[in-house]
């Protein structure tokens, strides 16, 4: 068998990124070896793109020993879905897209049900359904500790009850890089190989490894409308404008990608990776500022996670 070398001519990673990469690969291999039915949650965003790249590295020259699950709320940016399908084809991945059938039947939308209930039904419940259907005992996710205060508390192997609940007051000790993968039937683990990465690390790694991203991360003139202090993309017919709202064209990009009605764009001139990183290094607000679901109240992320959210 001929082993392909993907990195010919690419300069080596700096020691900081190399250490993060090594740690992530170690976690991938450990979970794949210890669990019977692992799965990777793939959300198409920058963190997921890095996660997938690291998974490909971890199992090279073999293929990924697990499928990917994408929770499709039906309200993702269209570019995201197109990008997802390209990635799946290019790497020959086994991807399962799941939408909550009850939510679909009841026509649950961010507008009709409000962001909190919509998120619960179309994301949290949908995720639990998908995990139950596949009887997965371990799910990789791209969450980072620097994203949010309750995430900062999470273990690399985050233990979940059969109901997928997280009990932050009773986490298992996690010493050195020795992970306890022993669970009872029905219980599961969420594994976070990117736990120790920061937003800047993610971008630097994307640059160093030439990882492809959804174009929404780069500034372009896009149609937006200002709502609740957020710039919402106004390209989808399902977005109904309120009486005093006006669609404008502006140079914007996204720092995180989720459901378009709940994800705010930032005004930006950064059209290249270098420019994005330069902007980030002087950014005065955090990336989650653009996420409606995180802004409801302090502790809302923890609440969602206790209920089984990612």
């Amino acid at each position, binding site marked *: *068998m001929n*082993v392909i*070398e*993907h*990195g*010919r001519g*690419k300069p080596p990673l*700096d*020691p*900081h*990124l*190399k*250490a993060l*990469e*090594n740690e992530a*690969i*170690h976690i991938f*291999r*450990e979970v*794949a*070896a210890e669990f019977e039915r692992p799965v990777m949650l793939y959300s198409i965003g920058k963190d997921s793109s890095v996660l997938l790249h690291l998974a*490909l*590295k*971890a199992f*090279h*020259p*073999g293929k990924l020993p697990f499928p990917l699950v994408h929770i499709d709320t039906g309200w993702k940016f269209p570019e995201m879905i197109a990008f997802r399908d390209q990635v799946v084809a290019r790497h020959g991945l086994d991807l399962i897209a799941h939408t909550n059938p009850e939510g679909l039947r009841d026509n649950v939308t961010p507008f009709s049900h409000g962001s909190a209930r919509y998120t619960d039904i179309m994301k949290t419940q949908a995720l639990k359904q998908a995990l139950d259907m596949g009887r997965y005992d371990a799910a990789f996710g791209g969450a980072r*500790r*620097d994203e949010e*205060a*309750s995430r*900062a*508390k999470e*273990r690399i192997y985050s233990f979940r009850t059969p109901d997928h609940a997280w009990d*932050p*007051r009773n*986490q*298992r*000790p*996690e*010493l*050195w*890089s*020795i992970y*306890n993968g*022993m669970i*009872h039937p029905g219980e599961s683990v969420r594994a976070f190989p990117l*736990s*120790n990465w*920061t937003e800047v690390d993610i971008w630097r790694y994307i640059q160093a490894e030439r990882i492809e991203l959804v174009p929404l991360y780069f500034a372009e003139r896009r149609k937006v409308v200002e709502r609740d202090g957020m710039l919402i993309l106004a390209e989808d017919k399902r977005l109904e404008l309120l009486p005093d709202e006006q669609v404008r064209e502006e140079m914007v990009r996204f720092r995180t990608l989720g459901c378009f009605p709940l994800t705010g764009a930032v005004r930006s001139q950064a059209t290249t990776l270098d420019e994005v990183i330069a902007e980030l290094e002087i*950014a*005065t*607000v*955090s990336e*989650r*500022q653009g996420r409606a679901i995180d802004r409801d109240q*302090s*502790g809302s992320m*923890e*609440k969602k996670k206790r209920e089984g959210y990612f």
Partner: protein
Amino acid sequence: MAGQILSQNLLPGEDILDIDPHPETTGRQARPLRFITCGSVDDGKSTLIGRLLWDTKAVKEDQAATLRRDSTGKQNELGLPDFALLLDGLQAEREQGITIDVAYRYFSTDRRSFIVADTPGHVQYTRNMATGASTADLAVLLVDARAGILEQTRRHATIAALMGIRQFVLAVNKIDLADYDEARFRSISRDFREIALSLGVRQVTAIPVSALKGENIVTRGDEVMAWYDGPTLVETLEKATQRTGQTTGFRLPVQRVSRPGEGFRGYQGTVAGGSIKPGDSVVVLPSGVEANVKAIVTYDLVRNAAVAGDAITLVLDRPVDVARGDMIAAIDQRPQTGRAFNARLVALSSDGVVPGKRYWLKAGSRRQRVMVRPTSALDLTSGNWDDASFLPVNGIGVVELDFEDTAIFDAYETNRETGAFILIDPESLNTVAGGMIDGKRSKSGRFDALPDADRATVTLPARLLEAFLKTDFARAHAGEIRVTGPEEAEAD
């Protein structure tokens, strides 16, 4: 002089400045420095890190706005935000005003990047402190200037030292509430120095700080503490060294075997010591089969070398039987193999560690059954190791491990990756202890860290022998010395 760095070899009271003349490259040319804050409950650990994040501009505007909003009503008399809320992110923590679990935070200065684990002071959550300590290069130990050193301070210092942390910063905090009293600072530093020396910690930097007011954290507190001329906390952190802690030969704990297609068979894992290149001879343990390295495969390149920390896929030159949990090691610098080892243990579950119970032990990628027999436990007030057969929760003890099949270890002192393990309760499946291998145990109960011929022999009369074995010196050097009573020396 304050802010001193102490050396183990000095007499108590004597100080020298022992700063590494060749500080490692910093910035992104090195991996981040990992440190923890620890110490007794309410001594100001979270406030200190919150302040550090604040003063290094790691807190973004939206996070600052949230902090101000959440601080309302809890504002201290100084009108400053409650910086601990930047760390204490769980609802239960906010309600109770304490830290329950470790928070990991990331920040950098112009000179270096850091990962800090803010650990809880409450004794009930010692397990979470141990979680943070296990991967740290340095510990910032906080003491409330008014209260001085408490039992929990000693416990945390001991666990940190046991886990191999050799650099301490003693932050004498809330100095604003102690009238910025120099004598108070000196007396606490002196007390701590003795503890550190008894734990074998070489480097201690003592700094008087006010976490809340940000004095001597990032900015100097000269206006209120003119008597202090040492470094600030952040200066000390920027200069700290990273622990390498690996003096063994090549080690690759095999995580998985990769067989993607006809003719390819690779062993995947992270190099846990030493280095390797194609052509090197290795031994597969426990089987003892020998082979040579044919290739080191990674996604990017087929490499001509790999070093500790690298996640690789190793291809050998002949078909051998290798499975997950095996270790591939340098042929001329092998780890210890056997069924009986001695170790030190921190008990982390409310059930403690029960003699005669069969636990699961996981080390690297190897998981096996083990019987654990505690022989002594540390008394935190006296500092003595007393005989014990049971370790209660948060207990620190020496144990004998007996395996049903071959175990593979290095002494923790020589390799943190291959000398550490966790114990898993077979019923709850929870992690109940963290352990550090001292060495192999032979039938007579001695350690086997070095072959007998390479050890120094210490012969003592029976009455001294027992006392000697209880000293930290004997424990720390258990693998290098051979201790005998007069009778045994003859019998050998």
